């Protein structure tokens, strides 16, 4: 069993809590992604699992063993660092075999393991090279290779793709996912990039200000965000948030944003009733907004002014102003895209919208 459990883990630097009472369980063979913005405590949490930082309080278990006082070398983990941390004075073969050499494995066995890993990662031709003779992508593979030769219980990845260009990042994302399936290992992966989290994770652990916000499968946190932070963090472009209040008129429930008003679906009613006439935040994802289609007849459209139109090929982002509210809509590129300055009628897919408590930021619906 190579599950990882954190129980009430706290890490303080002076009076600042970098990680605040974090309790999570990462299951055996799971691909877990810790995601959050800079300074949210995700890397600190990873470093505590690795043993590179000591928890101020709380317990960390790897398998059945409490590893609180265990040095990194005894935890049977491997870590891929953001800057790869390859040893510059050693060639790729020695870099990859370093951990095995420390474990006094025979040279023959080390060579066999290194070549097996090199084969998996397609870096056989690089084994004699020094790190400075490698491109960013190749270094990244070597760093992953160095981790997998040891066949550890748990793999830790600390933003390993952030130094790669966008194209390479997409390719490496898929490779790491494939590698996970092939090795069947437990992986804890830290990133600030929600796209990486969404595309690679079995479960996403979203953190903010040192505290855990939500745990869930990628589509779960996308569709049912626990709070406003998660809703804004997951999804690109980010969800539009509009200050509004809940209103009741002729028996129908509305979200009244001042500049516009839309009718809430019947399924929202029971949860919104306690918020009647109270301030809330209305959230709508850019992809749940589309140019008005008279035949669809959703009845929930708003009129907005197109400020900027960004064309991405298959789709467009339209930055809109609706009264005092700024919104972004993401839609399939129509044959004749809207022009800057156009007054557009935009349909909202109300069933997919969210409403948040303005005081607690928790999701109401």
């Amino acid at each position, binding site marked *: 069993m190579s599950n990882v459990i954190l129980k009430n883990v706290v890490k303080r630097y002076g009076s600042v809590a970098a990680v605040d009472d974090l309790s999570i369980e990462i299951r055996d063979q799971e691909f877990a992604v810790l995601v959050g913005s800079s300074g949210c405590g995700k890397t600190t949490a990873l470093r505590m699992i690795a043993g*590179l930082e000591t928890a101020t309080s709380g317990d960390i278990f790897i398998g059945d063993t409490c590893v609180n006082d265990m040095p990194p070398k005894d935890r049977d983990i491997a*870590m891929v660092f953001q800057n790869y*941390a390859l*040893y*510059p004075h050693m060639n790729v073969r020695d870099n990859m075999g*370093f951990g095995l050499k*420390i*474990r006094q494995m025979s040279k023959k066995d080390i060579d066999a393991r290194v070549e097996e890993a090199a084969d998996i990662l397609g870096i056989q031709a690089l084994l004699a090279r020094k790190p400075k003779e490698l491109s960013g992508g190749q270094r990244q593979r070597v760093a992953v290779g160095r981790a997998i030769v040891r066949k550890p219980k748990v793999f830790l990845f600390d933003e390993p793709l952030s130094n790669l260009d966008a194209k390479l990042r997409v390719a490496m994302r898929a490779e790491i996912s494939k590698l996970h399936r092939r090795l069947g290992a437990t992986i804890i992966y830290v990133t600030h990039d929600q796209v990486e989290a969404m595309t690679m994770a079995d479960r996403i652990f979203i953190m903010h200000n040192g505290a855990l916000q939500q745990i869930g499968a990628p589509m779960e946190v996308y569709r049912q965000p626990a709070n406003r932070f998660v809703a804004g963090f997951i999804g690109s472009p980010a969800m539009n948030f509009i200050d509004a209040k809940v209103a009741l008129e002729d028996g129908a429930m509305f979200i009244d944003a001042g500049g516009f008003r839309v009718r809430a679906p019947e399924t929202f009613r029971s949860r919104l009733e306690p918020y009647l006439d109270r301030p809330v935040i209305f959230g709508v994802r850019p992809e749940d907004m589309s140019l008005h289609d008279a035949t669809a007849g959703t009845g929930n459209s708003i009129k907005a002014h197109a400020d900027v139109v960004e064309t991405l090929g298959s789709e467009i982002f339209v930055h809109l102003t609706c009264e005092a509210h700024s919104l972004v809509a993401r839609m399939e590129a129509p044959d004749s895209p809207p022009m800057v300055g156009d007054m557009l009628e935009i349909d909202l897919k109300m069933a997919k919208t969210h409403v948040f408590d303005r005081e607690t930021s928790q999701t109401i619906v």
Partner: protein
Amino acid sequence: MNKKLLSNILFYLIVIAIACIVLFPFLWMLVSSFKTQVDIISWPPKFFFTPTLQNYQKVFEEQDFLKYFLNSTIVGVVAVGFSLVLGLPAAYSIARFTQKKLSVFILLARLMPGISFLVPWYIVFSRLNLMDSYLALILSHMLIALPIVVWIMSTYFNTIPREMEESAMVDGATRQYAFFAIILPLSGPGIITATTLSFIFSWNNFMFSQVLSMEKTKTLPIAVYNFLSYAEVDWGGVMAAAVAIMTPAIILTMIFQKYVVKGLTMGAVKG
């Protein structure tokens, strides 16, 4: 264009003026070492003269200069060697565990005038019968070498990403193993800088050797004293001896120029 040319001319004039000021004493010493005593003290100074090697003959034949050379080498090499053995782990510890107080304390030892150590040293070493011993000189020269090593190397270790040894530690190494297997091999340039500078400072040190050494362990800078007496000063001998002493230091500096300049610009060394 004219403005650029003018500023270039001004720049080089200033450089030449500074170089003249810096190099003049050295050139004077070099030229005088090839003059006879009469030529040296003649007024106005003679710029055209018949060069002679008699001063160098005196230095190497009449004086036991090779012994002094050997003494300076032994003291310098062993003091720097011990300073590296003690200073490298100390510098690593300061760099990685941000022990600011310790680093300031070590720097203070370097900034305090060396002469303030001499009286206690004299008493301690003479009571221990260590006067005129290599041990006393080596220990005293470590006061020069150790802070240089610690200060330069702690700055240097800070430039090596922490992830290097963290990665080794996750791979199964202890911190000590990571230090020897990963950090030290990456510290070559820093170690060369610290070694060169501390060796040169030890080589040139006059004061500690003057008090703590006698005939057996006399080092090169003290040997220059042999040419000074109450009756007269043998300027030719002094100049030739000074040139002979400076030559190894100059050669070392020229070989490791890149590292020496880097060390000085690290703000690590009191010039």
